[in-house]
């Protein structure tokens, strides 16, 4: 591990000024991803600015009925927060499906959103990887790619975003409050993450030195919501496929809905085609399956992840069946 200096930030502005001025500096929060990367040689900063004390434990009501979550709020505290459980259960479910009790006690809201891919080649500093070493190639395309993307990938990178929280935040239409050297800006989480394209080194649209200070949720969407995660073991594993869904019904018809896939792409995947197909329709079994198929029409599979297409389709249909309640039971096993 390369030696580094450590500084504990006392205010956001000076933390931003310090990191923005030094290309080799990085923010440190709970450390559960970054310390891992320091050990693996995936990250080699020369200065760590610890922001974990900033905006910790801060969850406040907004005048519009929404909620402001401090970037340093720990995953476990957020999941257990009574207002979150009562009004944004999707968020609690997503958080509690991720990592372990010990990790959630340390992990922060911003750190979770900005955790990096679990691609095994990315995490192996001796392997080529375009995300870590631009231009070195992507061994996952023809290698071990069971966990990799089926939507929105590029020939340069087929990694997936691992965060459960991120998928839920997109479904909740959350916005990140971001402080940069030139002041504050607001970035909808739906637009925070990038597709890899020809520059997989950047996961998000944030510039070096930009600090997430808070995440704001709009007033609750209403209706019913569910986070369902499918993985290799019952607990303590990353998603193969996950679905964050919120559905509002009226008179047997889907009034409005938000559908987001985790585990399928370089970013949480808003299933806009499926949403469009169902909005204003009766959620019959046929309609649910057609909506899922519409979203997965553009799926491109690799040697090891073809299973994700039916898994994603069936998971989405099953979650929608539960949330819409009115849909008929499946007529067959197809």
């Amino acid at each position, binding site marked *: 591990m390369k*030696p*580094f200096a*450590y500084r504990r930030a006392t205010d956001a502005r000076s933390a931003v000024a310090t990191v923005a001025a030094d290309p080799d500096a990085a923010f440190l929060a709970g450390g*559960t991803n970054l310390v891992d990367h320091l050990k693996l040689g995936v990250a080699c900063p020369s200065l760590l600015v610890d922001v974990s004390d900033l905006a910790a434990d801060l969850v406040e009501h907004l005048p519009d009925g929404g909620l402001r979550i401090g970037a340093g709020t720990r995953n476990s505290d957020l*999941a257990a927060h009574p207002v979150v*459980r009562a009004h944004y259960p999707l968020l609690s479910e997503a958080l509690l499906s991720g990592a372990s*009790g*010990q990790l959630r006690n340390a992990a922060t809201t911003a750190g979770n959103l900005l955790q990096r891919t679990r691609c095994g080649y990315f995490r192996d500093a001796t392997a080529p990887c375009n995300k870590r070493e631009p231009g070195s190639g992507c061994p996952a395309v023809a290698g071990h790619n069971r966990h990799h993307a089926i939507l929105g990938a590029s020939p340069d990178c087929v990694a997936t975003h691992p965060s459960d929280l991120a998928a839920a935040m997109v479904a909740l239409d959350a916005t990140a409050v971001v402080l940069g050297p030139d002041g504050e800006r607001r970035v909808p989480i739906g637009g925070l993450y990038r597709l890899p394209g020809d520059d997989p080194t950047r996961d998000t649209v944030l510039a070096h030195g930009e600090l997430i200070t808070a995440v704001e949720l709009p007033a609750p969407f209403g209706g019913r919501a569910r986070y369902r995660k499918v993985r290799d073991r019952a607990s303590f594993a990353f998603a193969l496929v996950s679905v964050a869904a919120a559905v509002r019904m009226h008179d047997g018809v889907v009034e409005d809905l938000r559908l987001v896939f985790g585990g399928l792409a370089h970013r949480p995947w808003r299933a806009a085609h499926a949403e469009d197909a169902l909005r204003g329709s009766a959620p019959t079994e046929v309609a649910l399956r057609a909506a899922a198929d519409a979203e997965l029409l553009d799926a491109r599979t690799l040697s090891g992840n073809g299973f994700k297409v039916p898994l994603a389709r069936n998971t989405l249909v099953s979650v929608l069946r539960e949330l819409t309640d009115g849909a008929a039971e499946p007529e067959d096993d197809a």
Partner: protein
Amino acid sequence: MEADITLRVDGEDRKVTVDTRTTLLDALRDRLGVTAPKKGCDHGQCGSCTVLVDGRRVVSCLSLAVARDGAEVTTAAGLADADGPHPVQRAFVANDALQCGFCTPGQVCSAVGVLAEVKAGWPSAVTEGDAAPELTDAEVRERMSGNLCRCGAYPGIVAAIREVGA
């Protein structure tokens, strides 16, 4: 680069100079001789290094010692009091909740954390509705999923934790 830090470990203030790269786990084991927390994976994946920091269970392998300056750290060795082993430790013995014992200090610290979390009403992924969580087998398994046991002592571990939580 070096930093002077103080950790309150198992009730005792310990001053130590650490390289900033040192994890809390390595500071405890290699610098302070506190070997109760074990290094299994060193990547947050096994839970054998679990300690309580300011009363909350965390994995000490993914925490930098310098970032914990001033913290109160409780390891499995510090759970006992004047009356002898902690109730969780006694229950582990009574329920055969270990074989080789390597994972046990982490299991025990994690279990103490779980009991506090349940008492505080924290939900888990298997908690139904808003009711106060009850320590069923499913709840214990879910809440303890960050602690692996290669000897497979899980049935005893679940029984021990349910016994103390009852």
